[in-house]
């Protein structure tokens, strides 16, 4: 199962992208617990593009694709903004005292924590971030059980 969409890189598009992801997960009969890490990853990566991907006023174009194969869901976020590898950001200090706490870097940290695999590539004029994670389908009975 595959689906893709494309939006301009502006914050107001976050709701549409989230709906696109939720609709895909619903159609695929994935439980909401499986969709959540992808919702968070999508917000983090998309908002990075919104904030840094449109210098000089030209809005970046952001393509999001979802592929469910076997039990692996893969999400790719591709944008035509300036070259930027979010995976190069240093990890945040999640043990710092309150005064020293910053939120910068936390988003990418979440993505790394929640996904099974994350990779970045610059392909021609585009950044491509690919994330995948094994998901459990709602209708899949564990082996050896009889759902009756």
């Amino acid at each position, binding site marked *: 199962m595959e689906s893709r969409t494309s939006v301009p890189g502006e914050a107001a598009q976050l709701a549409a992208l989230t709906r696109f992801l939720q609709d895909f997960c619903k159609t695929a009969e994935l439980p909401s617990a499986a969709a*959540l890490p992808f919702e*968070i990853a999508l917000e983090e990566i998309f908002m990075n593009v919104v904030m840094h991907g449109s210098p000089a006023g030209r809005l970046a174009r952001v393509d999001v694709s979802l592929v469910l194969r076997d039990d692996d869901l893969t999400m790719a976020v591709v944008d035509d903004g300036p070259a930027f590898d979010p995976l190069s950001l240093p990890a945040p200090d999640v043990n710092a005292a309150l005064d020293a706490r910053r939120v910068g870097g936390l988003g990418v940290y979440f993505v790394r924590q929640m996904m099974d695999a994350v990779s970045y590539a610059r392909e021609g004029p585009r950044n491509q971030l690919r994330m995948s994670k094994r998901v459990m389908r709602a209708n899949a009975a564990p082996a050896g059980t009889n759902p009756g």
Partner: protein
Amino acid sequence: MFDIHQGPAGEVIMSGRLDATQCDAALKFLGALARPGVIDLGGLEYVASAGLRVFLLTQKRAKAMGGGLKLINVHGPVHDIFRYAGFDQVLDITRAGD
């Protein structure tokens, strides 16, 4: 989608999805409170790093005034996000059902 208001005992009640597009509204609401304290997150379904910034900034302000936030009724998935970020070390957080 997202709602923030004050309950009868002065507590702040947040519900829905606190995504990046809702943070300004949440910060504005919390910034208008003289002394932010208890925030009931029983209806909060979703938060990511932009939403965590709302709690971080508000906690810094509350601490500077000699107080501090108490986040109550925090559901499992939202609690996990606070914990991943290590925010359970700098905020008073009580899970739903505790």
